[in-house]
Structures are given as C-alpha cells and as structure tokens.
C-alpha cells in the first residue's frame, strides 16, 4: 500500500513538473528552458559532487564554496597562459582533487570533524584563489575555451553549443561514476557512509575511502567551476559563494522528485533536481518585482518546502503520531 501511494505521489509530482515545463514554454519561450537545461547540467555536476559527500559518505563537506572558484581560477589562469583549454580544464579537476584530498586528510588523519574540515578548506581556498587569479577577476572573453573548440568542430554556437558541450561532459562523468561506484573500491566508499564501524571491522581502510570520496566530490565541483568560468567569460573569486546551499537544495529537490534507488537513478535525480531548481530560479528572475538579490531567500524557501513535504503528507494522512501520544 505504501509503495503504491508513493508511486501516485511521484507521478503527481512528475505531472506537475511536466505541466510547469509546458507553461514555461508557452509563456516565456524555449530559451528559458534551454538556459535552465544548460545550468541544470553544469550545476548538476556540483549536485553530484555534493551528493557524493553529503549522502554517500555521510560527510557534510562545505568546501564546495571554495572549490568551485578554484576550478574556475586554475582553468582561467592556464588558458590565459596559453594552455589547451581541455588540458586547462583537466588541471582544474586536478586542483579540485587536491582540495578534496586536504579536506579528507584533515578529517581522517588530523581528526577534525567533517564540518570543520570543510569550512576550513573553504576559507583557506579564498586566499588561495585570490593568489591564483592575481586579483579578484580574470577575463576570458578573448581566449579560446572548450566551447570555442567544440563550436568550431561542430559548427554550433550560442546556447545550443553550451548545452551540447556540457551534456557530453556530464555523460562522460555519468558513465565513469556509474562504473566506479560499482567496483570494489566504489562499494567500499558507499559502505563507509552507511556504517563506518562495520566497514572497518571488515578490514577496509575507511580513511582511504573518505579521502577518495572527498577528492572525487571536489574534483567534480572544480570541473563545474571550470566549465562555468569558460562559458561566462570570466573567473571571479566570489563565484562560489552560496554554491553549497545550492548544491544541497538541488540534491534535496532531486531526491524528492526521483526515487534514489541505485547509483544510476541517484545521478539522474541530482541532474533532475538541479534542472528543476534552475528552472524555478529563472522563472523567478523573469517576474518584474523579484530582484536578483532575492534569489537566496527563494532558494531557502524552496528547500524548506521540499524538506517539509513528506512530513506534511504524513500529517494530512493522519500517520504522524506526536511523540507524547506514543503508547
């Protein structure tokens, strides 16, 4: 019975989502949808990274706010130096891996709490990013980026180019993660988040898996940062502010929309959640009296609604028994 009702609920949500998309198409046209698709894909990478630490490893890694601009900074500086943009993007991923490594080491070897480790890395990365950028901002307008290269090869431009390029990256990431998280190491990673003591008692080194998970997560976020910097034409030290909140919001929305059973569905849920979130944000920006500065409040409101929804459903169905009344 629970399963069926769950299914009905999910179908209702998906229908609502479909209805929303149709409404958007009719009122605001395709370009809002396309912009949301592009953002859904590229920030979906951030969502996947956040999911890896937050849910899979059960480790709240707040360093995302620092790793996102780190990826953008390393990539921008290397492209300006004349490196091949693909290599520069890989360098950005490498930088993210290092940052994650540090967070993991702080937690496992130096025994700092996960929350603290993430915050410290985030704060430290602000200064490091400023040093890398040599200021607060590096323009990439006249440089050759991944998007330019792909655009030349495929003859695309504009939003179509952005979406296709990012889609390719996301598909590659999806395939790699889907494979990796089913290997022995990947399974150990997933088990660590589930029950760390059990994993250790079985002889696996959870320090290694935590460090690996953090590194992977931050690598993904840095990749997203590099892509965003190249697409928007500049890398800025402040471009990661609020990224962790957005990541958590999108993960939570995604979990609410799609049943997260199995790795493949989890990854799809992250992307779907990010798409839904960016769609709502873009719609909000189109409303005249909504100012860009209001977006953070809207995000918080959205997350509250999505988090409270299951509880409200329970209360409506009379299934919520307040603690005092338990017999």
């Amino acid at each position, binding site marked *: 019975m629970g399963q069926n009702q769950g299914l009905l609920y999910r179908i209702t949500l998906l229908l609502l989502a479909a209805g929303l998309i149709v409404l958007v198409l009719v009122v605001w046209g395709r370009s809002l949808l396309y912009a949301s698709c592009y953002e859904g894909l590229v920030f979906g990478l951030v969502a996947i990274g956040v999911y890896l630490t937050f849910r899979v490893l059960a480790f709240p890694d707040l360093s995302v706010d620092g790793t996102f601009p780190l990826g953008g900074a390393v990539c921008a500086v290397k492209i300006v130096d004349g490196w091949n943009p693909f290599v520069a993007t890989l360098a950005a991923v490498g930088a993210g891996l290092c940052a994650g490594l540090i967070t993991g080491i702080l937690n496992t070897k130096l025994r700092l709490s996960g929350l603290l480790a993430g915050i410290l890395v985030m704060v430290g990365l602000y200064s490091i990013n400023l040093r890398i950028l040599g200021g607060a901002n590096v*323009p990439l*307008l006249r440089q050759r980026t991944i998007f330019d290269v792909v655009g030349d090869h495929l003859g695309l431009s504009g939003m*179509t180019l952005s979406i296709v390029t990012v*889609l390719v990256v996301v598909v590659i990431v999806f395939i790699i993660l889907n494979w990796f998280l089913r290997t022995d190491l990947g399974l150990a990673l997933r088990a660590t988040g589930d029950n760390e003591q059990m994993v250790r008692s079985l002889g696996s080194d959870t320090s290694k898996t935590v460090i690996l998970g953090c590194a992977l997560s931050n690598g993904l976020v840095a990749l997203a940062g590099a892509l965003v910097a190249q697409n*928007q034409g500049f890398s800025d030290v402040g471009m990661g*502010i609020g990224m962790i909140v957005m990541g958590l919001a999108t993960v939570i929305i995604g979990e609410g929309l799609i049943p997260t059973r199995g790795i*493949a*569905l989890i990854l799809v849920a992250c992307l779907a959640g990010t798409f839904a979130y960016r769609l709502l944000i873009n719609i909000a920006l189109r409303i005249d009296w909504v100012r*860009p500065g209001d977006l953070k409040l809207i995000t918080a409101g959205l997350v509250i609604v999505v988090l409270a929804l299951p509880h409200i459903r329970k209360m409506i169905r009379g299934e919520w028994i307040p603690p005092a009344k338990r017999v």
Partner: protein
Amino acid sequence: MKKLAITMFIVLVIGFVLGLGLTGCGSNNEEETIPTTQPTAQPTQAKQYTIGITQIVTHPALDANKQGFKDELAKLGFVEGQNVKYLDKNPEGDMSLAATIAQQFVSQGVDLILSIATPTSQACVAATKSTHIPIVFGSVTDPVAAGLITSWDHPGGNVTGVSDWLEIPTQIQMALNIMPIKKIGVVYNAGETNSVTQVAQLKTAAPALGIGSVVEATVATSADVMTSAQSLVGRIDAIWVGTDNTVVSGFEALVKVCEDNHIPLFASDTASVERGAVAALGLDYYQVGVKCGDIAAKILNGENPANIPAEKMNLTDLQLYVNPTAAQRMGITIPQTVLDTAYKIINK
C-alpha cells in the same frame, strides 16, 4: 531499477538531442538575433522596444548614469511605458548573478542592453557573443583593456558606449592643490580592470608630480574596504580613490577610517564628496548617461554599433566638488583659491 534508470537517462538524452535538432535552428534565429543593420521605422510608431539595464552595484554615480540614459532616450522619442520597456536588474556585486542576468537578457531577446560599469559589461559581452544584441556600455574606464572592444574608433562588433576615462595626473594635481602629498595611498579592487588601469597611470605619473611613494591596498569585496584602509594608516599622507566600483560602494567605511585617523580622502567621482571625501574632480555621470542615450537612440534607429565610435567625456566637463567640513574632520583646510574655483561646495 538499474534498467529503469538507464532507460530514463537514455530517454532524456534522446529527447534532448531530438528537441535540439528539431528546434535548434529555429531557436537561434527566433529570439537571439536582432537585425540592427536594417533601417527601422521612426521610433514614435508602434514598435515596442525592450531594453535591458544592468549595473554592477548601487551607488550614486552609476544611478545617475542610468537616469541620464533614460531621460535622454525619452527626449529622443523612446518613452518608458509608451514604446519602451526597461528590464532593470542589479546583481549588487555578485559576479555570477551578473552573468545570469546577462544570459536572461539574451534569452528574453532584448533589443538593446545598457551595461553600466566594467564588470557587468564584461558579463554582457560574453553572454551576447554569438548574438546580434547591441550593447551600450556606460562608465567603463578602459573598454579596450576590459576586452569589450578592439578599438575606440571602430569598435567593430555589437558593443560601443561611453567611457568615464579620467586623466589621472589632472586628478592628482587637484589633490596637490589642496595639500602637499609625498606619500599617497590608493585603495582599489585588483579585479576591476578599470582600477588596474588607473593605478598604473598613478604610479607612472607620481614621480613627475613630486610624489615619492604610492602605497596600494587592495580589496576583493566592499566588505574588505575598512580593513584595507586601516592597513594604510600611518604610511601615507592622503588616500586617493579612482572610479573603483567596489570601493565606492563601500565608501562610508573608508571615510570613517580617514576621519578617525585624520587622513584626507580624495575621490574621483563627485557623488563621493557628499559622502565624505574632501574633494573630487569628477564627471557628471548624468551626462555620461545622456551620451549613452544618444548612442542607444542611434542604434535603435538602425545604425550599426560597429561603426559608432566609443566616446570619452570631454575633460572640460569635469566639475570640482569640495567639502570643507569633511576636510576639517580630516585635519586640513581647503585653500581659498581652490574654493573659488569649485563648481560646488558641499558642507556635510
């Protein structure tokens, strides 16, 4: 579950690619390309224009730029509410938001974008890269260094506008007329290309003006202004600020530090004098906006922005504002000779 997930994913991807393929050609033409080379009808006829306006942060100079622009366009027949709709979005210093706003303007298919200040202009130029949406920039100190245009006379793309370029030696000379300065401090955001250009000019001009040393203090956001200003205390005779958007938006913090430590503060935009600077030899940003309005009207009437030269303001347009009360609080008196030549004396 695995099959379901993979199937869903494949369906999404296919649906996407199909959707793009079927509509891809259409979308690029529909909302993103605006023909500007065809002569359009007179503005007073029924055509509705949508103009996107964005400025990096709220401060009086940029606000005046915007107002001048709107007023001038109204004078030339493009009146808000009649044939023009303005989309006014302000990212308040958040660069990612600036990029999102620029992208929004593009996807909404605006007829023209007015981008005020260098960072927002950079974001708008990046967003309109493969479209024909014309951009008029305002209050951008050095559009060539910022990567917005390739040459002042023939911008050659879809971007042109009005620069608030200042000759730095003239600025410093104004300060030197009020008090002798051997060591000058400058607070700026190294991430704003306009500030970097001005500080470089300052360093080149300093020896000839008799200034022994230039001490720099950089900020990344307006929240850092107070700390950076305090790092200069005791090392300089006076502080000078260029047309740096970050510092000007956090100007009050700088004024406080200068008043507490009796350090005279000189600015480059006249609105800052009312906020507590001793003096500024600045442009009337309203007039900058008026020139932007002129250029925008030309573009909306069919001229190609590639052929409209980017303009600087006439240096005879500079106005000297002084604030003797602020000077007193900072420990100096403005000489009568300077007071006599001032365009406006503010006592706040």
